[in-house]
């Protein structure tokens, strides 16, 4: 009888595990694209490298888009920014390449995204028509690829200088982030422009302009919260103030929230920021790592970094901050105390830029 109870208990325990959402038992891994053409997988429980996947063809490996619905797969821009490689993380190899260029058109990209449903790959394309002795810059566009058939569904004209893409949680809207512009919102069904969210042109008295760009694209891992450092210029004094911007992509019509935090001054400044959805603290990095409370606008903690790190990424569980993007390691800090926990050597340098570090739940 005692054995039967134990067996029944075991069965119930296993059934209980099965009905739990995947996120409660799966582990978070950090994906890091590196020079010359590699994708490194880091177990964030042990903060050790578990896979170093050499991609095919030319590098450098650049921007990463995990597939949230099928986390076995991730998409990585490589081949001199002319292709998107589909990588099987379990098998540790590249399984497909989406080549963007054709015979008379050179196409490069700086921004890709996969929707939460795992059905669409979005690629911002910058095409150049190559004729005999003449290059013509063509309109930039978004290519929408069906990930079931790997075929292009539609392309539509997009703004230039786009360096970040993010899709709404329901997959209906695509947000385009660029240098020195507003945020453009397009329909993922027909590509039509649905909205323009003022960022550079907020039209607020006393503010000349606001600059901001989501340099770390870990929004799906952060409950669909896009957050980034902002720089607001006073129209009279020309003084610049550092702030944190955020956009909740679970909302149908999200409001861009910008909180101005600290004067942006020479000698002690940071460049990129991220907001923790768990504690609502803002983290900034460059040559030092800051933790700022947006409510009080005070720097709660500041530590020097051993070298420049371009991006602070908040771990999806909120307890650690990963600094990296441009160095041959990733430095891991305690999100509360900012104590250095460890450094994860990647074996190759990262290439900087947008979305070269992403988390995946596997």
């Amino acid at each position: 009888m005692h054995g039967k109870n134990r067996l029944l208990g075991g069965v119930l325990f296993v059934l209980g595990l099965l009905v739990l959402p995947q996120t409660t038992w799966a582990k978070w891994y950090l994906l890091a694209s590196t020079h010359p053409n590699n994708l490194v997988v880091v177990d964030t429980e042990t903060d050790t490298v578990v896979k170093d996947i050499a991609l095919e063809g030319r590098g450098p490996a650049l921007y990463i888009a995990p597939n949230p619905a099928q986390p076995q797969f991730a998409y990585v821009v490589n081949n001199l920014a002319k292709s998107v490689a589909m990588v099987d993380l379990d098998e540790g190899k590249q399984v497909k390449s989406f080549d963007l260029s054709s015979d008379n058109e050179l196409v490069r990209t700086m921004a890709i995204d996969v929707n939460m449903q795992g059905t669409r790959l979005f690629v911002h394309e910058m095409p150049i028509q190559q004729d005999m002795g003449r290059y013509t810059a063509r309109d930039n566009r978004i290519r929408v690829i069906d990930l079931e058939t790997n075929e292009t569904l539609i392309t539509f004209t997009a703004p230039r200088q786009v360096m970040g893409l993010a899709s709404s949680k329901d997959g209906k809207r695509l947000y385009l982030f660029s240098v020195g512009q507003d945020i453009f919102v397009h329909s993922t069904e027909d590509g039509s422009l649905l909205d323009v969210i003022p960022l550079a042109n907020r039209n607020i008295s006393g503010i000349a302009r606001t600059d901001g760009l989501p340099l770390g694209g870990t929004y799906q891992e952060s409950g669909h919260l896009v957050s980034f450092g902002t720089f607001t210029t006073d129209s009279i004094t020309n003084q610049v103030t550092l702030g944190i911007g955020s956009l909740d992509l679970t909302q149908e019509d999200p409001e861009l929230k910008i909180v101005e935090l600290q004067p942006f001054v020479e000698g002690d400044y940071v460049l990129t920021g991220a907001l923790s959805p768990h504690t609502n603290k803002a983290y900034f990095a460059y040559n030092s790592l800051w933790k700022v409370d947006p409510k009080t606008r005070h720097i709660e903690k500041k530590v020097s970094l051993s070298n420049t790190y371009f991006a602070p990424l908040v771990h999806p569980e909120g307890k650690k901050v990963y600094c990296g993007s441009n160095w041959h390691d990733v430095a891991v800090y305690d999100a509360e105390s900012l104590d250095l926990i460890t450094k994860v050597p990647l074996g190759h340098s990262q290439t900087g830029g947008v979305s070269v570090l992403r988390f995946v739940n596997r």
Partner: protein
Amino acid sequence: MKHLKAANSKARAVTASVTRATPTEEDVIGMAQPIGCTTIFNPGWEANPWGGASSMCAPMEADLLSCANLCWWPAQVPDSLQNAPEWAKGCSGMNQEDWRNLDVVFPKTDTSG
């Protein structure tokens, strides 16, 4: 000008000049990264946002591949997407000991004639 009609050759030349000065198509396009142009219009490599040189990337090599591979400042750092793709081949690890293997890039010259 809209409601005036040029009556002599000098006036017609003024009208033509004004028309030329306001072309209907853009001839300068920001961000044409694919052929080695700069990604953005920052003032320059290794100058901070105030034009000074304090609190720069540390060490300087922390910024090299990021600038090269993103074609950020191709005049100052080799553009490894288009014109100098082999530039960093010798130091793929970018650890401190192999920075010396970075290649030297010379401007391309036309020797055809």
